[in-house]
């Protein structure tokens, strides 16, 4: 079972790094604590909803910022939503970028907003890739007959 132990160690290291580098915060741990036998895929399901939601929001933001006359209230509303959902799953860096984004919306600063859109998209893609990698690791552990280490 050396393979399982190695995978588990990899999982622990990877997860720890995600927290240390600020990709995830305590809210993600809270989500994992909610998961139980009645719904063993709860975290994956919620995170998948977040991914779907985020893609839509990013498209909406791009469209809104491309308008001849930008409606900053509308842009702010999308960012607010994005801030909320990212915060709910613990995607800390995305949330922080949204806070910055909202400041530029308030100032009606188009250039600032465009930059933030790029950055928030970048952070989103990063965290999405990392979460997908994490879920893959979980699957590998389970398939190898092991159990997924629990975070404290």
């Amino acid at each position, binding site marked *: 079972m050396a393979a399982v132990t190695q995978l588990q160690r990899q999982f622990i290291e990877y997860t720890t790094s995600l927290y240390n580098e600020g990709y995830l915060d305590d809210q993600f*741990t809270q989500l994992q604590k909610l998961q*139980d036998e009645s719904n063993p895929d709860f975290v994956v399901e919620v995170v998948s909803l977040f991914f779907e939601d985020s893609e839509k929001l990013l498209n909406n933001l791009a469209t809104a910022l491309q308008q001849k006359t930008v409606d900053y209230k509308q842009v702010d509303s999308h960012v607010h939503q994005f801030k909320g959902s990212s915060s709910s799953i613990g995607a800390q860096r995305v949330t922080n970028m949204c806070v910055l984004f909202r400041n530029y919306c308030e100032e009606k600063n188009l250039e600032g907003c465009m930059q933030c859109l790029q950055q928030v998209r970048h952070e989103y893609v990063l965290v999405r890739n990392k979460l997908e990698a994490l879920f893959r690791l979980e699957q590998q552990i389970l398939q190898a007959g092991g159990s997924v280490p629990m*975070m404290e």
Partner: protein
Amino acid sequence: MGFKTSAEIQTRHPLRKNPPQLTDSNWSQTPHLHRMETITHESDPTEMDSSSSSSSLGEIGVEMKNNNNKVEEERPHVLVVDDSLVDRKIMEKLFTNSACKVTTADSGKKALELLGQGEDKHTDINQQGPKINLVVTDYCMPGMTGYDLLKKVKESSDIKEIPVIVVSSENVPTRIKKCLEEGAQEFILKPLKQADVKKLRCHMQFTKPIKGRLCMGRYTMKRTSDNK
């Protein structure tokens, strides 16, 4: 934050290896029974029915009849209102983990319909089924805000007694004050934690269980002489 060492590694998914056996002694702790009670009401008509939860209800029906019906009837019924699907899903789980029955709505308008204040009486679950004991609403919603919903609830003679909790991702003192003054039981900052939900149980009003009632039209809860 730390991890248990490999020697003590606990599994987060014990069921995947060893499914638990449902016995009379442990049924009340079985989380899936709570989950089966979740009904989702959303604007999209294709999601209006809760048939997705009916597959295991037969199983539940058998167990409920053999066991203490009183527990089922006393389970608080929470209406969660939030336009964010991610947050609805999380809140639903928070409350079902705390032994509550949950119905969700994606707008204030939908919530009012479910509370019997809308035009369509057919969606009024307060008349047809177990009453709602608690409303938890997000503040920021398009159209009718959580504050607007709170006002409507408190202005209505039928439902003003139902406690309303307002949740928000933003800590705005004037907003908080406004909601509390309008009659909100509490104002809680998002994201909600399990500890917040546990504390909310004290706010839930219980209504008297009703005999022989069809619960959501799927099975009959019969009271026997053994049950109080």
